[in-house]
Each structure stands twice: as structure tokens, then as C-alpha cells.
């Protein structure tokens, strides 16, 4: 049972590893092909834009949003996420907190840790760009810190997660080849860097295990130097 659980956890975290199909528009990269890092003010602008767009629903201009004021049903999910104390009211402060998380890529739809806008393009090759502002969980991470906060884990739970993480890391290391371990290490170093972090993972590394078994066809394989996987794809 325990073994099964570990396998399940492993398959979930491995499933979260970036795949090769991250071709982005060329304009999102610097001249040398590395992804551009957005200046902090672009992220601030992005946060402001999200807040402004939601506060537009504040009919009575009291600086707060009620669920009833948000007449666009599709945005209620975000409303509920922002409503930290679950009182059916979202203050501008709660909104700013969520907007920052979105821009940092800490919520499911957040895309890259780059906010949005041309300099903040997704630019993902290989490991998917530098960490920066928190960002999506690093490969193999079971429960990223922001999620632990969202779930209000107790200190004891956090300790147990840390132990579980250690176990996962050890078992993962055992089942990977030396080369894979090295690649993973490089990917991990690419995440969680401070703002303005470097190019992150190894440039030009478009695939996992380039020396994998010959002739093995994985669905996401496009062949070396093939066309960007997502242009015109269905």
C-alpha cells in the first residue's frame, strides 16, 4: 500500500516535468535565444491590470467586491480564490495578493513566472525558464510552499511533507540514470532563483534523455530541429 502510494506520488510529480513541446514565438526571446526576463515594473503593471479589471465590477464603489457584484460567472472561481477568509467579500488587498500570485505563475493558469506582455513571454525551452518569483513547483516537488499555505498545513504536517519529499527525492534519484539526474539537477537550479534570475536550465536541451533507446517513439517527440511543435498543431 505504501509502495503503491509512493509510486502514485512519483508518477504525479514526474507527470509534472516539462516536456519538449514548448515552442514559443521567437519574439519572446532575447537576441541570443535565451528567454528575456521581465523587468519588475512589467509585473507590477500586470498586477494592476488584473486588479483594475476585477474592480470594474465594484458597482457601489466601496473598494470591495461581493460575489453578487461579479456578474461574470467565469470569474467566480478567481473570486473564491481571492476570498481568503471566505466571507463572500473580496477586498482590494485580497485581490492584489491573488493578482500577484497569478503574475508569478503560482496559480494553475499562471503560465510562466513572467507575468504577461511581450518581454515576459513564456520562452520555455527545456526546463521552462528561470525561476523568479516563486513560480510553478520545481520538478519532483510534492507540495510547493504556497500550496502548503493555501491548505494551512500544521507544523507537523509540513514536517511530514518534508520527510515525504526526502523519500521521493531519494527514490527518484535511484530510478534515474546519472545523466537524467544531472539534467534534473540543472532544471531544479533553474527554478526558485530570485528575481532577475539567469537563463535557468541548460540552453538547447530540448529533450529528455537524448541518449535514450534508439527508435523509441514518444508522443511528444518531434525529431531534432523539427518545426516548433505547436505552430498550426490541432
Amino acid at each position, binding site marked *: 500500500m505504501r509502495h503503491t502510494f509512493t509510486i502514485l506520488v512519483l508518477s504525479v510529480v514526474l507527470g509534472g516535468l516539462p516536456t519538449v*513541446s514548448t515552442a514559443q514565438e521567437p519574439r519572446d526571446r532575447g537576441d541570443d535565444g535565451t528567454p528575456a526576463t521581465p523587468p519588475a515594473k512589467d509585473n507590477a503593471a500586470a498586477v494592476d491590470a*488584473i486588479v483594475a479589471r476585477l474592480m470594474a465590477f465594484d458597482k457601489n464603489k466601496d473598494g470591495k467586491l461581493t460575489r453578487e457584484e461579479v*456578474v461574470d460567472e467565469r470569474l467566480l472561481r478567481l473570486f473564491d480564490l481571492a476570498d481568503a477568509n471566505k466571507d463572500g467579500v473580496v477586498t482590494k488587498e485580497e485581490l492584489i495578493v491573488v493578482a500577484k500570485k497569478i503574475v508569478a505563475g503560482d496559480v494553475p493558469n499562471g503560465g*510562466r513566472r513572467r507575468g504577461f506582455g511581450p518581454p515576459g513571454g513564456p520562452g520555455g525551452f527545456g526546463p521552462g525558464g528561470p525561476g523568479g518569483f516563486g513560480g510553478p513547483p520545481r520538478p519532483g516537488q510534492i507540495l510547493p510552499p504556497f500550496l502548503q499555505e493555501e491548505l494551512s498545513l500544521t507544523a507537523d504536517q509540513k514536517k511530514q511533507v518534508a520527510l515525504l519529499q526526502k523519500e521521493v527525492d531519494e527514490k527518484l534519484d535511484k530510478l534515474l540514470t546519472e545523466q537524467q539526474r544531472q539534467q534534473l539537477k540543472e532544471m531544479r537550479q533553474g527554478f526558485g532563483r530570485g528575481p532577475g534570475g539567469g537563463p535557468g536550465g541548460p540552453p538547447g536541451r530540448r529533450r529528455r534523455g537524448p541518449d535514450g533507446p534508439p527508435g523509441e517513439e514518444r508522443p511528444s517527440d518531434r525529431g531534432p530541429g523539427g518545426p516548433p511543435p*505547436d505552430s498550426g498543431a490541432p
Partner: protein
Amino acid sequence: MDSIDRLLSRRTLLRGSLALGASAFWVRGAFADELSRTPSLTEGPFYPPKLPLDTDNDLLIINDNIMPAIGEVTHLSGRVLSQSGEPLRNAVVEIWQCDGNGVYIAQEDADGRDSNFQGFGRFLTGSSGEYYFRTIKPVPYPGRTPHIHVKVKKGDRELLTTQFFINGYSQNQRDGIFLGIRDPLDRELVLVDFKPIQESKIGELSARMNIVIGRTPEDSPDRPRRPRGDR
């Protein structure tokens, strides 16, 4: 109909979803463009060139008493609205997606196509703007995160072509087409929650997403038109 069908009949679902929708829509046209348009995304190469024989809103072709492993059965619904919140009636909503094996019906020569999956569906909205389909939760296609293609037409005019994604599916963050939506708030408009239906004994899911169409002049010469006929 067996009891599950009755429970999940279109009418029941419509009633339930209308009740949900009613609270967000109490005065026609009162919203003055408050609703953001659903972003437009590429049609891709697999819009069926010939319509399948069956073009109803049920994408599952399942014989009685047989429940093949077609995928996670999903009841997809929502309302087609204008930006001011008015429902769009007599709009045709079409969806198409690959089957559980990753094959589209348009891929005629492909092996492994699931013959229990219709792959394309169509629904004509009524006065509530509501649309409804029975389909499967989308699965990955090589190089793409799971998605459902959606098209909205009225008469011979195409109003919108886009794609729906699974909220929280990590591959979204590596999908070029999804990431092509720059604004994170706009991404919310195509990210769909697939929630288990409590009463279902076979693990059916429900997915809900409104579609908001931008204002267009009635007779814009720039609107793409498809020839009249069986489309």
C-alpha cells in the same frame, strides 16, 4: 431511459444550470459590456471536412448495456452571451476533439480511432442561450495539452472559434496555443473545471463554461463566411 439517463437528462441539467445562471443575470442587457469576450484561438487542421452522419450534441455512440472505455464521460454546458450579458439564441455551437486514443474524426486514415466516439457535435441555442453536449474529458494529443475545439456560428456567420482547456492541467503551461493568450484573466475564460457528478455511479463529470461573443455589426464584410449548405 434508465435512471441515470433520467437523472442526467438534458432537461434536468438545463434546469440546474439555469438556476445557477439566473442569479448572475437578472436584468437583460444591464451589464454594458462588462463581460469579457471569450478569446479566439486557432481552428487547427481537424475541423471535419465532411460532417459525420450524426451531428447531434451527443459525442458518444454507445450501444445499450455496453459502456466501453471511451474516456471520462462529461456533460459540457454553458450559455452563449453577448458582452452585455444577453443570451444569444439560434446560435450554433459546435465542438470537436480527438478521441481517447488521440485521433480526430477528420483523420480518416488514422489507425486506432475509437468508433464509439462521434468526435464532433452541434447544438442550437434557444432563448436562454444555453448549450449542452455529452462528450469525454479531453486527452492530450501529441504536442498539445488536452483541449476541446469550439465554434459558434449564427446563420452563415462564424462568430467565434476557440478552444477549452482543463483547469489545473499542468501541460497547459507548456502549450504554445494556450500561452498565446497573454492576459491571465483571459485565460480564465477558457479554463474549464471538470467536476465529478455526485449522483453518477459511473464517474461522470460536469463542465461548465459560458461563451461571450463580441459585438459585431450585423453585416460585416470582414466576417468569414461559410457557403450555405450542409454546414
